[in-house]
């Protein structure tokens, strides 16, 4: 059957918002991409009944009429993979937003078609194989310097194995040019720098691996207390105003992944603009290069069509998998998965599916699982260790964590950073609550941290226990006031306050504070715990708490996080020395023997 004959028979018979029903679709496949109407609006087949197809349209369907022609493309919704992805910003179906702006100005017009990658641009290809070599799927046959930070490996596409018959020499090529010919059992196959991959299908790997390394984010409460591993999955739930997006931005900025994919899914337009404005200016703390050189943005803001929001998550994760296949560690940030789930709900309602909890489709948990399971630490087809880490923001209605999206998400993630409205109201950011959050990766990444500090586990436990005890004491204080507590317990309140202000709260805008290196995190924590341990001993020796409170080192500890940079660790050593000297002096004054003090928590 020719395309022309299909075009004439297939037509829309019903239009209801983003859902179009079409007749004469006997040749259509599930999840095939179709073009609707004379504008060629992009849609995807989501249901087939007889020769009727239900199509989910990614663009506004205003004034589409019954009888509008439907054109099948014969392929499922796929993304383009090749050099030029990094630094770009796409909508949910991988249309480049700068290209759309060039074509239709500041507004996104319907039916605008722009290729995801520039097919005319020349890239300098450098071959990594020679003719005669046997290459399997996933093997790099060449590389392209995509940005100063990213060496883009040109890989043999999945499913292709054979002998290199020819490969071009180093030189400038377009992504559609053949750079190598591979002789397979089925005959010679051309390899270009461009691959296409259906977004709803995970890209193949060799095997999954255990997570052993933390994804360092530079955020103290995360790295020290609730770490996420490279290849792990985490959720950030929080009501509005609790700082989900700022926390996500912070992670996207400072995580030590090689590639960052940031998916703005159903969120604010200005937030994406902020990322676009900030990322090129901010420098990666490790390489000193602009962060945009390792970032891919997917922006499907809340006012863009809802069907494209549903698919944006898959578009993002497919791009992430592609860079993972090059042996990279990739981090995906999805803000917000609740908007994605709402898109599912909206589309399910339009399809008149039977709703489950709160109107969400019964398939919600399955869909969430499919998404989060596309992350992980793996061995790639080429045999390299690589990972995709996923951090999903969740926006529970009314900040109530018992709603379906939060609850089901919890089943498929192992790291939970609960944002707290009260902390946010007091402008304590990140408003991750230390008692409601957890990480199951602590054991997995503990070995890595022990290389940084042998007593990492103990420090962490001591600090968390302290915060827990403070919470219980606060309940008493709420009833009777702090004055009735003995000094020993008030010391806990005092140290917890320092811990909150001087360690847990972290400014996203202070130059020194926005990124805190692992070494500095440990040093800061040590100082606070030194004061705690020493303070405990002093109080046992009869020193009143007010004397400890008024030590000169106290305000300095509070401000140490922003006073010193990552390269001024010696200043922190001095500060710790000051804590020891001042406490020592107090001990001499009150305690005759003078040497009751414990040793500081350091090695």
């Amino acid at each position: 059957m020719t395309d022309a004959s299909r075009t004439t028979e297939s037509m829309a018979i019903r239009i209801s918002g983003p859902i179009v029903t079409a007749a004469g679709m006997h040749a259509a496949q599930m999840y095939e991409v179709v073009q609707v109407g004379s504008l060629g609006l992009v849609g995807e087949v989501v249901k087939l009944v007889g020769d009727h197809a239900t199509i989910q349209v990614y663009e506004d369907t205003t004034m589409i009429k019954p009888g509008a022609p439907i054109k099948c493309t014969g392929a499922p919704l796929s993304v383009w993979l090749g050099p030029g992805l990094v630094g770009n910003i796409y909508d949910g179906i991988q249309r480049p937003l700068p290209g759309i702006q060039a074509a239709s100005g500041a507004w996104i017009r319907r039916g605008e078609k722009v290729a995801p990658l520039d097919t005319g641009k020349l890239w300098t290809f450098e071959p990594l194989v020679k003719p005669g070599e046997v290459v399997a799927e996933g093997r790099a046959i060449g590389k392209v310097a995509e940005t100063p930070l990213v060496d883009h490996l040109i890989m043999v596409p999945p499913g292709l194995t054979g002998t290199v018959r020819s490969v071009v020499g180093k030189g400038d090529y377009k992504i559609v040019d053949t750079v190598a010919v591979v002789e397979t059992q089925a005959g010679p196959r051309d390899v270009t720098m461009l691959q296409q991959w259906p977004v709803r299908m995970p890209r193949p790997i060799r095997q999954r691996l255990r997570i052993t390394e933390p994804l360092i984010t530079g955020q103290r409460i995360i790295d020290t207390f609730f770490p996420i591993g490279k290849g792990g999955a985490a959720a950030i739930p929080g009501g509005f105003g609790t700082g989900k997006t700022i926390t996500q931005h912070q992670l996207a900025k400072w995580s030590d992944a090689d590639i960052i994919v940031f998916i703005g899914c159903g969120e604010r337009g200005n937030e994406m603009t902020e990322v676009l404005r900030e990322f090129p200016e901010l420098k990666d703390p490790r390489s000193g290069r602009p962060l945009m050189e390792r970032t891919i943005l997917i922006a499907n803001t809340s006012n863009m069509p809802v069907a494209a929001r549903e698919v944006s998550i898959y578009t993002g994760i497919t791009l992430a998998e592609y860079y993972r296949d090059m042996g990279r560690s990739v981090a995906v940030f999805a803000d917000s998965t609740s908007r994605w789930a709402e898109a599912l709900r909206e589309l399910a309602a339009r399809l008149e599916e039977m709703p489950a909890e709160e109107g969400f489709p019964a398939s919600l948990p399955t869909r969430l699982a499919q998404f989060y399971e596309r992350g992980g630490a793996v061995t790639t087809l080429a045999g390299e260790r690589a990972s995709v880490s996923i951090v999903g923001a969740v926006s529970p209605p009314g900040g109530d964590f018992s709603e379906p999206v939060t609850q089901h998400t919890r089943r498929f993630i192992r790291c939970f950073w609960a944002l707290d409205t009260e902390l946010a109201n007091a402008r304590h950011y990140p408003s991750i609550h230390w008692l409601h959050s957890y990480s199951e990766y602590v054991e997995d990444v503990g070995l890595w941290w022990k290389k940084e500090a042998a007593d990492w586990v103990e420090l962490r436990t001591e600090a968390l226990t302290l915060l827990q005890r403070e919470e219980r004491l606060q309940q008493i204080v709420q009833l009777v006031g702090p004055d009735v507590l003995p000094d020993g317990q008030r010391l806990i309140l005092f140290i917890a306050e320092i811990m909150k202000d001087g360690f847990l709260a972290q400014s996203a805008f202070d130059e020194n504070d926005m990124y805190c290196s692992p070494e500095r995190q440990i040093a800061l924590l040590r100082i606070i715990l030194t004061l705690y341990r020493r303070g405990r001993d002093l109080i046992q020796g009869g020193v009143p708490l007010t004397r400890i409170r008024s030590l000169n080192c106290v305000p300095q500890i509070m401000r140490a996080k922003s006073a010193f940079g990552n390269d001024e660790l010696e200043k922190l050593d001095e500060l710790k020395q000051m804590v020891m000297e001042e406490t020592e002096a107090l001990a001499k004054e009150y305690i005759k023997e003078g040497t009751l003090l414990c040793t500081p928590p350091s090695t």
Partner: protein
Amino acid sequence: MHTTFDVEDRGLQYVGSSRIEGPLVVVERVRDVGYDETVEIIDPAGHPRLGRVLDISEKQAVIQVLEGTTGLSNKALRTRFLGESFCLPVSRQMLGRVFDGLGRPADDGPPPLSAEKRDVNGMPINPYARRYPREFIQTGLSAIDGMNALVRGQKLPIFSGNGLPHDRVSAQIMRQARLLDEEVEFSMVFAAMGVKHDVAEFFIRNFRESGALARAVMFFSLADAPSVERLLTPRVALTLAEHLAFDCGQHVLVLLTDMTNYCESLREVGTARGEIPGRKGYPGYLYSDLASIYERAGRIEGSPGSITQMAILTMPADDISHPVPDLTGYITEGQIVLDRELFQRGVYPPIAGLPSLSRLMKDGVGKGYTREDHPTLASQLFACYAYVKRVRGLADVIGEEELSVLDKQYLKFGEAFEMRFLNQGEYENRTIETTLELGWDVLSTLPKDELHRVSDALLKKYYREKEEKPVCAAPLAEGTVA
């Protein structure tokens, strides 16, 4: 039964319908009709009523009648499809005029002349083409300017409750809003959905008296107008605002009131269509629908203009977790929350200290925008006021007498913050300097050592030293005071 016939100059008309329910009319066997097409329903008396197509198939068109279905009958009704989606003629000449909820003149003036017609649904702004909002807008209200600053291109709603003075607060903002560097005045687009006649009268009077009417356009869909009309009113208003901002290069301040009424209309239509309801009966697409309104704010490349949006909504039973404020808060860039307790204590404007938030403030204040100390001051005021709330809770239990000296100072600070900083006159227009100085005055009622978030340099410059020593437990504090 369904015959079609041609009437001269009036195009194809369909006679009769198969079902009328709530605001919906179902017309069978229509041809060449598009989704979201505008419809004219001619009632038995011969008056046209506007409607639009919600669902179209080969068999039938489901039409939402914007002006009510009262008096329509299946037999006598005639339908005409207008061949385009709902459009508004836009023009600069509309400034100074009052229109109804669908953009038809509601004053004595003639329909505006205009060659330009715009689809009221608008088009999404390409995020890549947005310009990030940065310029500080001075509203003259300390609670907003000092703590929750508004910037040009932001969408900042006011969460209020029934009986709270949101109308007075928003009228004051509209009277006083200024940009700092240039004496640019805003054009104003005002859309009222489901408000009472006297509220509409209040705004018109207020605009007229302050002379603001000449640079304002008002759209009223009053409480007794058909509820479906309200679904178009904010879109009509924003369509004009987009024209004024991005075609004419003006700075436009859009005030939408009351979004709760809008959402109620949406629920009404959804229920009539037999849709599966989401939370509290609101349709599952409420978020996307609200976003299609709120996201029509901002600034774009290639145009000097801007749209700043303030939407007022009344929280049913003052419940901030109700779907309407909840989803709004997820889309807008912060919120100004009015507080009943402050209001009852006579504080005007009763803007709640803690739940209010402006997300874009960080980029529009500080050095180069307002004053270097602004971000720190706001952050410290927030932190101290949060502690005041805790102390007050404690004082309720153990009594004020039992509080520590420091906690008593916090109580005093709280009182000063509310009565001197937040509280101001309805016609008092404070400059940002006044607001900041007032902030330091209030903050200086606390000992210096309590201000953890303020750097030493700023403390030195702005902290008001007092004659008496700050009451502090620390004997060492003496040395650090100077």
